[in-house]
C-alpha cells in the first residue's frame, strides 16, 4: 500500500517538474543573459504579413539568438498594440495621425507597397477594367449599383459589362488598406466621398455590402461572391491571379488608367518621396505625373523608441537595419514575390536615423 502511494507521488513529482521545465518565459520579458533567446513580437498589417513571414525564417537562420513571432491582425491592432507595448513592432500601412502620436513613438517605413482593386466578374476576370476614384466612391456610397452603370461603361468603351448588382466588399477590422483606399477616394472624389479616411472609416450604408476580416478574408470574399469588388493589398496579387480574379487599372492624377506594375509604382514613388519629412509620416496617394500608380504607401513599423531592455533594443535595431538593407530583407528575392519596392536611398537614410533613436 505505502509503496504504491510513494510511487504515485514520485511519478507526479517527476511529471510536475517536467511540465514546469517546459514552461517558457512569458512573452513580454526579454532576457539575453544565460543565452536564452530574445523575443521580438510583431503584429498588424495583413498587407505586410506575407513579406514578414518570409523574412522571419531567413533572419532567424542567420541570427540564432533572436526569435521573431509575426501575426496578421490588421493595422489598427498593430498601432494599438505597439502603443500599449504588448509587441515590439506594430506593422501598419497607415502612418499615425498627429492626435495618435505620442512622444517616443516612431513610424519607420520598411518598404513601399501598393494596393489593387480586384473583382470577380465571370467572363471578364482576364480583362483589366478601367476604374476611377469617382466610380469607386460611387460604388462605396451606393450611388453606382450595377456593373453596367453608364459611368463604368464610359470608362471601358467596347467592354460588354454584365447587368448585375455590384457587391462591394470592405474590411470589418481596423485596416491600413481601408486607410489607403479611403485616402484615394477622398483625394479623387471629395464631393462624393465625405466619410474621410481612417483605418476605421465611417462606411456609408450600402445595401448588399459584405465585410471581411483581413486581406485574406477579402480574397475569400471575392471568391465566394461573383460580381463582387474589393480593395486588396498587392502582396496578395499572385494568389488572386492563380484564383483567376481580375484587377483594375486605376485612374491616376493625370487622368490615365494605370496598372499596378513595378514600373508604374516606381514612377509614383519617385514623384512623392521628396515630400517625406524627418518623421516619415506622409501619404503617397495619388502621385502626380503620367503612368503613376495612385495607391502606394510606405509599410510602417510602429516602434517605441524606449524598449524594455537594452538587449531587446539592440536586437530590434539589428533586425530593422537588415530589413531595409538591399542585401537583407529588401533584396529582390524577397520583395519581388510580394510586388513591393525597396525604399529609395534618401528614405533609407531617414529610416536609419529613426532606428538609431531606439534604445
Amino acid at each position: 500500500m505505502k509503496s504504491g502511494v510513494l510511487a504515485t507521488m514520485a511519478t507526479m513529482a517527476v511529471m510536475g517538474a517536467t511540465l514546469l521545465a517546459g514552461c517558457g518565459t512569458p512573452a513580454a520579458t526579454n532576457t539575453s543573459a544565460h543565452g536564452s533567446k530574445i523575443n521580438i513580437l510583431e503584429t498588424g498589417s495583413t498587407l505586410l504579413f506575407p513579406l514578414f513571414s518570409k523574412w522571419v525564417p531567413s533572419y532567424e537562420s542567420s541570427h540564432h539568438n533572436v526569435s521573431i513571432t509575426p501575426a496578421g491582425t490588421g493595422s489598427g491592432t498593430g498601432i494599438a498594440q505597439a502603443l500599449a507595448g504588448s509587441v515590439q513592432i506594430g506593422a501598419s500601412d497607415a502612418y499615425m495621425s498627429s492626435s495618435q502620436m505620442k512622444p517616443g513613438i516612431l513610424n519607420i517605413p520598411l518598404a513601399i507597397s501598393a494596393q489593387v482593386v480586384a473583382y470577380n466578374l465571370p467572363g471578364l476576370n482576364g480583362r483589366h477594367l478601367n476604374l476611377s476614384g469617382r466610380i469607386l466612391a460611387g460604388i462605396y456610397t451606393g450611388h453606382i449599383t450595377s456593373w453596367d452603370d453608364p459611368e463604368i461603361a464610359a470608362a471601358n468603351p467596347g467592354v460588354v459589362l454584365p447587368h448585375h448588382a455590384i457587391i462591394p466588399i470592405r474590411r470589418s477590422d481596423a485596416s491600413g488598406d481601408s486607410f489607403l483606399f479611403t485616402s484615394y477616394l477622398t483625394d479623387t472624389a471629395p464631393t462624393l466621398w465625405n466619410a474621410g479616411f481612417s483605418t476605421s472609416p465611417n462606411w456609408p450604408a450600402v445595401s448588399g455590402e459584405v465585410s471581411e476580416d483581413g486581406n485574406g478574408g477579402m480574397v475569400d470574399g471575392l471568391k465566394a461572391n461573383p460580381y463582387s469588388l474589393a480593395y486588396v493589398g498587392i502582396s496578395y496579387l499572385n494568389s488572386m491571379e492563380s484564383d483567376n480574379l481580375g484587377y483594375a487599372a486605376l485612374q491616376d492624377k493625370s487622368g490615365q488608367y494605370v496598372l499596378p506594375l513595378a514600373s508604374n509604382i516606381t514612377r509614383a514613388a519617385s514623384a512623392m518621396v521628396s515630400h517625406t519629412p524627418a518623421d516619415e509620416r506622409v501619404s503617397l496617394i495619388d502621385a502626380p505625373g503620367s503612368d503613376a500608380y495612385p495607391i502606394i504607401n510606405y509599410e510602417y513599423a510602429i516602434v517605441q523608441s524606449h524598449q524594455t531592455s537594452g538587449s531587446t533594443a539592440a536586437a530590434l535595431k539589428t533586425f530593422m537595419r537588415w530589413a531595409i538593407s538591399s542585401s537583407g530583407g529588401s533584396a529582390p528575392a524577397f520583395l519581388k514575390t510580394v510586388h513591393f519596392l525597396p525604399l529609395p536611398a534618401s528614405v533609407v537614410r531617414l529610416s536609419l536615423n529613426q532606428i538609431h533613436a531606439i534604445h
Partner: protein
Amino acid sequence: MRFIRQRRADRVVGALLGMGALAPLVVVVGLLSYLVESSWPVWRMMGWHFFTGQLWNLGNLYAARPAIVHGVPVMPGASFGALVFILGTALTSFMALALAVPLGFFVAAASGYFVHGRWRVVMAGLVEMMAGIPSVIFGLWGLMVVAPAWAHHVGPLLNRVLHHLPFFTGPVQSETNLTVAVVVITLMIVPIIAATIRAVMERVPRELVESGLALGWTEAETFWRLVWPYARSAVIGGAILGLGRALGETMAVLMVSGDALNVLPRNIYSSISTMAATIAGQLDAALTDPTKMAIHALGALGLVLFAATFVVNILARVIVNRSTAQLRAVTKNG
C-alpha cells in the same frame, strides 16, 4: 444551544466562507461601477441619441485636434449610436428563441417523458454534451458549413416559397447574415431550454403518470393533462434563461453575423451586428482613438448589455423557482 464552541480552524473557515459569500456581490458591484464610470462621457456626449442613433463613427482620426462636444473631447465628426446593435441583438435573440423554444420543448418531452430505458439516458447525455460545446466551435461550423449552404441552396429555395413575405425574402448577397447567426444561436440555447423543461417534467411523480395510464389515457393524453401544466411555466423559465445566453453570445455571432455598421437590417439576409459581437470586434479599432471616446462607447454598450442580461436572468430565476415550488406543493398534497 446558542453558544457553539469555535476552534481557530472554524474561525478561519468562517472567514473564508464569508469572503466566498461576498465575492459575487463584490464582482457584480465592481463590474457595474467600472461600466458606469467608463460610459459616463458617452451619456454626456450622446444622451438618448445613443439608443436612437444609427451611426457608429469614431470621427476623423487624422484631424489636427479633437473637438469638444457637450464638454467631452472627441475626434471631429464622431457619433456613437447603438441602434444597429440593439436591433441586431433583439432580432437574433428573439428569432432564435422562436425556433429554440419549440425545439427545446420537444427535446425535453422526448428525453424526459416519452423515450424510455437506455435511450433516455443516451439522449440526456447528448443534450448535456451539446450544452458544453464551446460556442466558438458553433461559430466556425456556422461560417464554414451553414453560411455557404444557406446562401447557395436554402436561401434561394426559401425565397421562392416565401416570395410574398416582405421581411423574409431578399437577394442573398452576404454569406454571413442574420439567418446564419440565428441558426447558430438557436443550436446553442436549445440545450439550456431543454434541460430546464426536462428538470420539471422529471419531477412529476411517477405514480401520477401511472394512475393516468391506468385510467386508460394514452401516453400523450397523460402528458397533456398531468405533465404539461407544470412544464408550462418551466417553458417560460427556460426560454428566459435561453434568452440570457443568447444576449451574451459573442464569438460565434461575430464570426457569422456579417459585422454590419451604420445600416439597419432589411430582411433576414441582411448583415447584422449584436452588442456583444461589436464590443469584441470593434475593440482594436477603438484602441486607435486618441481621445479614448470609442472605448467609453464600448463600455456604454457593455452597460446596456449588462443591464439587459441582469434583468433577464433575475426574471428567469423567479419564474423557474415559482414553477418548482408549485410542483413541490402539489406533490406534497397529491
